[in-house]
């Protein structure tokens, strides 16, 4: 029996940077979200999948397709979401 995918589901590519990548253990992955597919819910899903990220949740910067978007921004299929901790030094 095949998996039934709700047509309202949205699949995004999430890329993890720096210590977020270290915590998650990989550089990127695809995540499917059901409606409402916004940044807040995506972040919630990411934390659900990788509970250790909750330690740095409040300092994570989220960008979509290389831009900063509001939390209510509606994600679309194929969007690229970057999870970036604060940067410093160098």
């Amino acid at each position, binding site marked *: 029996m095949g998996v039934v995918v709700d047509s309202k589901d949205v699949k995004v590519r999430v*890329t993890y940077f720096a210590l977020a990548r270290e915590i998650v253990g990989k550089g990127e992955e695809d995540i499917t979200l059901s409606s409402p597919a916004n940044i807040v819910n995506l972040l919630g899903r990411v934390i659900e999948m990788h509970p250790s990220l909750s330690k*740095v949740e409040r300092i994570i910067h989220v960008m979509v397709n290389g831009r900063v978007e509001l939390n209510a921004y509606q994600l679309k299929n194929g969007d690229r979401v970057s999870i*970036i901790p604060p940067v410093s030094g160098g």
Partner: protein
Amino acid sequence: MLGYTGKILHVELTRGKITEKPLDKEIQRLYVGCVGLAGKILYDQVPIWAGPLDPENLLIFATGPVTGTPGLSAGRHSVVTKSPLTGYFGDASAGGFWGAELKKAGFDAIVLTGRAPRPVFLWVKDGVTELRDATSYWGMNVRDSDRAVKKDLGETNAWVANIGPAGENLVRFATVSNDDGDRVAARCGVGAVMGSKRLKAIAVRGTNKVPVSDEPAIRDSLKELTKLMSSDQTSRWMMKWGTSGAFAPMMELGDTPIRNWTSGEFKDPSKLSTPGEYANYRQAQRTCFSCTVHCRPVVTIPEGAYKTEAKVEGPEYETLGALGTNLDIGNVEQVIKLNDLCNLYGLDTISAGGVIAWAMESYERGLLTAHDLQGCELNFGNGDSTMKVLEMIAYRRGFGDVLAEGTRRASRILGHGSEKWAIEVKGLELPMHDPRAFQGMCLTYAFSAVGADHMEGETMGIESLPVGQESPYFPEYGLKSTDRLGVEGKARIAYIMQNVYQATTALGYCLLSSASGGTCYPIKYNLQFYKAATGLDMSFEEMMRVGERIYNLKRAFNFKHGMRKDEDRLPERLLKEPLPSGGSRGSVAHLEALVKEYCDIRGWDPSSGKPKRTTLEALQMHDVADELWA
């Protein structure tokens, strides 16, 4: 006077005269150490008519009260002078072990004047000092001369600060290296001043312990802090990769310059990243005196066209940008080699990269040809040509003689509008953080006395937090993040971070491990270590006042030496050309919108740009106020 030795070594090189003088208690109280201590001596003693490469300029190596004590990352020293690149206040900071060793050898600072009649090096061992002939080392690269000096002294445990061919040839962005050339006081051309004095090296050996007030208290705080940092994710990331671990996220944010600050996206950041291809060359991480962060990458290229010696120190974030992305070079072996060449020659990687980026753009616009560059085709991306040009710069051969003057002077010599793509402030080439990505950096670059130097006050650690979020590591700062591409709140962020950075440096700590946000190192430990070292209390507010005092001292020096406020600017490219792509696309640097609020916070006179008399007097800088407002 615990923490300090209480002694400053004065070396007059023309006559070869060495004297010791006591550390002035008032200077120590107000300016503390490192850049502050050295800065006040420089302010008081360099005549306004002295050119940077004249014998009358001073070159000062200074430690802080915690340098050489067991507090975490307490190993720094500053090298301060009138800069040959800018003509204004020049300071560079370095880590490693040299500074701690100088302290153990019995001195808080060394003040050098004059010019030796022939090349010399200074040897300091447990309070005994002499000038020795360095003719046989003159011409050697940094690493070879470091090793040769130690071998000839028979002192394998000595630490050496020295210059390479670039310093000897008075390249205006030459460095003073230390610790086998692996640590560098890089910016402002301090190495050229050392070369102008015909001083090849300062070797130090100290077997004394730095006297402290309460060593058990230092060790208790150290144990507590080390445990805290080893369990903190941010700290562990820094310990694993050093600043190259910030390369990928900074690229993503559009912070790292590409192709002389014209592009917002790099072809393949993974080539220069860790994790990424760069990680394949990493063998270890080294550390500095009394530091558990181990941020220094150790690399080897064992064979091939870019072979290096075994276990050299590899490029950190700035160099990945300056000799990588900003030259559009994506070959990590080439960038590793370019970094190593700069270390051997004694060249600042940021300024070298900056002037070469300018030259590449000039070449691609047809103003320079391969004939001008001894056959080098200096297109963006050409790492092999870049290596040849670095050598030309270090030895001032052909057009390298022009490039050795720095981007500002080189663009004035070439002319034909090339000043438009000379990316510098006050003559100092910009580091690898784009103010179009972090607007707070507009103020650090435009207003810092030394020119564009990110280590005068980085704002990215706050600006890269989610909007409205306070730094979890530095609640004392009282700063919340605002939109990094906007202007709100940036004046205050820049003001606080600049003061923190000056004070942290003055105390003798490493900025990367303790103030930048690169680790979780809370400020209270800096102050605990300071108290345990010296027996003196210092509150966070007092620490900030020290920072503010030093920041204003440096600015006052500049006005004393002829600066006008129109030097507080940014390159037109950043003000007018939006980034076309990447994480900060569409953004320009909004300096104009920030100036008034910042100058008000700083207490500077709006028409002249000078610190107001009332500002200076509130900081107990009455002598400076009297001179500046005479």
